[in-house]
């Protein structure tokens, strides 16, 4: 049996969409390896047990719940010790993580504890004999490396948005587990979570992203992007590095080589010329729309649809049109 342990990510007591993506990826991995159970570890503070249902709805055969106040915030050291302990037992052939800020922090710790390699940040995978073979972007995602991992257990992290959560209902089965070490003993302590406006959808979770660049001229004009995002209802607002360097938008909203990598269903680039550093972070988006005054801007080379024009004029009209389309 090729059982898979999936590490589900939660934040502030809520499951993240990447957790469901990881469960879907875990089911696929179990199938490719000839069948096995998918167990999901869900750690969090008081009440996290009540958040397990969507994991079963997406194919978790069992949810291992680690509910303890010491996990209300990300507790990397205690979590790594617990995950390593579970993976050491021989029950699991695979450990599967989300390649998020937390997942990329946790997975290498676990790998080093177990003395096994980690196949990181894959957009897809297959199983070939005893190896997991995965596609991993390198060189700013300008080259795709296919890497083969031969270790036991095999640890893999999946890139956000690479897998679409697929419903595959199971009866909810939960098992309460405890931390492998005293959660209070961790040397690294997360003392505060700053999430900005928690009503806003995260860039990596958003099916639609409205991104603004220098062409918006001043910080206040990002209101036009916010308005369009609101019209879609499932959109987040991102920015280029030039914009975050100016302080128009928070640093954490930066999309590109040195910021976030996103691949939403729809990416609307407003007033963005398309520097390659920016393109590196969004070129895998399914549909790209560009609005720019300069008809020779590089963004038009990768955009599916382009409008040559001033984003400040086009955005409000587009917002009204999207509202109308949503209402009809």
């Amino acid at each position: 049996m090729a059982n898979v342990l999936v590490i589900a990510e939660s934040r502030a007591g809520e499951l993240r969409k990447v957790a469901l993506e990881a469960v879907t990826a875990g089911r696929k991995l179990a199938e490719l390896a000839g069948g096995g159970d998918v167990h999901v570890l869900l750690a969090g503070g008081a009440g996290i047990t009540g958040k397990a249902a969507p994991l079963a709805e997406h194919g978790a055969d069992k949810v291992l719940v680690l509910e303890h106040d010491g996990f209300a915030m990300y507790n990397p050291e205690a979590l790594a010790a617990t995950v390593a302990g579970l993976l050491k037992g021989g029950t699991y052939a695979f450990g599967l993580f989300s390649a998020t800020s937390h997942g990329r922090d946790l997975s290498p710790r676990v790998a080093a504890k177990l003395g096994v390699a980690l196949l990181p940040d894959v957009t897809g995978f297959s199983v070939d004999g005893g190896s997991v073979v995965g596609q991993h972007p390198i060189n700013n995602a300008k080259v795709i490396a296919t890497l083969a991992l031969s270790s036991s257990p095999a640890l893999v992290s999946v890139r956000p948005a690479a897998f679409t959560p697929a419903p595959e209902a199971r009866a909810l089965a939960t098992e309460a587990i405890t931390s492998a070490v005293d959660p209070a003993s961790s040397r690294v302590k997360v003392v505060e979570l700053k999430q900005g406006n928690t009503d806003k959808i995260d860039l990596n979770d958003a099916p639609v992203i409205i991104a603004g660049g220098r062409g918006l001229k001043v910080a206040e004009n990002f209101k036009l992007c916010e308005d369009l995002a609101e019209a879609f209802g499932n959109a987040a607002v991102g920015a280029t590095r030039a914009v975050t360097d100016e302080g128009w938008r928070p640093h954490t909203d930066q999309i590109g080589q040195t910021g976030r990598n996103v691949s939403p269903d729809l990416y609307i680039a407003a007033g963005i010329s398309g520097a390659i550093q920016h393109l590196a972070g969004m070129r895998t988006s399914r549909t790209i729309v560009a609005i720019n005054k300069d008809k020779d801007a590089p963004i038009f080379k990768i955009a599916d649809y382009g409008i040559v024009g001033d984003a400040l004029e086009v955005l409000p009209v587009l917002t009204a049109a999207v509202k109308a389309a949503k209402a009809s």
Partner: protein
Amino acid sequence: MKIAVCIKRVPVMEVKFAITADRSRYEETGLKYDINDFDLWAIEAALQLKEKAGDGTVHVVCMGPNAAQEQIRKAMAMGADSGVLLESDARNYDGLAVARALAAELKDGSYDLVLFGRVSIDSMNQMTGPMVAELLDLPVVTNVFKLDVSGGAGRAERVLEGGSEVVEFPLPAVLTIDDGLNKERLPSLKGIMAAKKKPLEVKPATLEGVQLTVKSMALPAERAAGRIVGEGVDAVPELVRLLQTEAKVL
């Protein structure tokens, strides 16, 4: 304050990469190299911490080919005091094998801080820092974009998707530095001259137990050329129609 900074020599990415005929690697002919962006910010962070403390040393550790001495010299020209090259011609994708070699080099150094860039833009592994920390049994904070170190402890803010979290940690510790913490200084002419005389040790790296290997490489599928829908606000109705009927995203 005794600080080690682990840096990597990476290709300058403003090129179109080509894959070799046997698809085993990307062509390296004609590529230019520099210090990984994120490692420049790690070097800058180390220099600022040393300057603030009023004394200390910044030691650069680099695994790479013999030519990576250029990158170590550049770090020295920025202000690092010394460096070591763990020489290896292999392009290693197994982060644990690399982390083991780095940890062996760092373990007897009594460093207060070991800094890494958050990610190398070539391998995009994003794992070496936390692995080294784990192997050395040191606390680690990744994705640091705000940092305050004083009195044997630190407080950092790390990047999350759509937010951040504040983390407290004791020294010694490992940190991986993200974009936004600082802007790296340029080497001065005086710095470049001084760098030539700073100690740089070269020794072979030992990579053992490699479990992750390259099967093949490819270029990502090109996006089909797009089209200009029209000019200005008049193009909006047609764009909305295409988003609804063709792209089916609205």
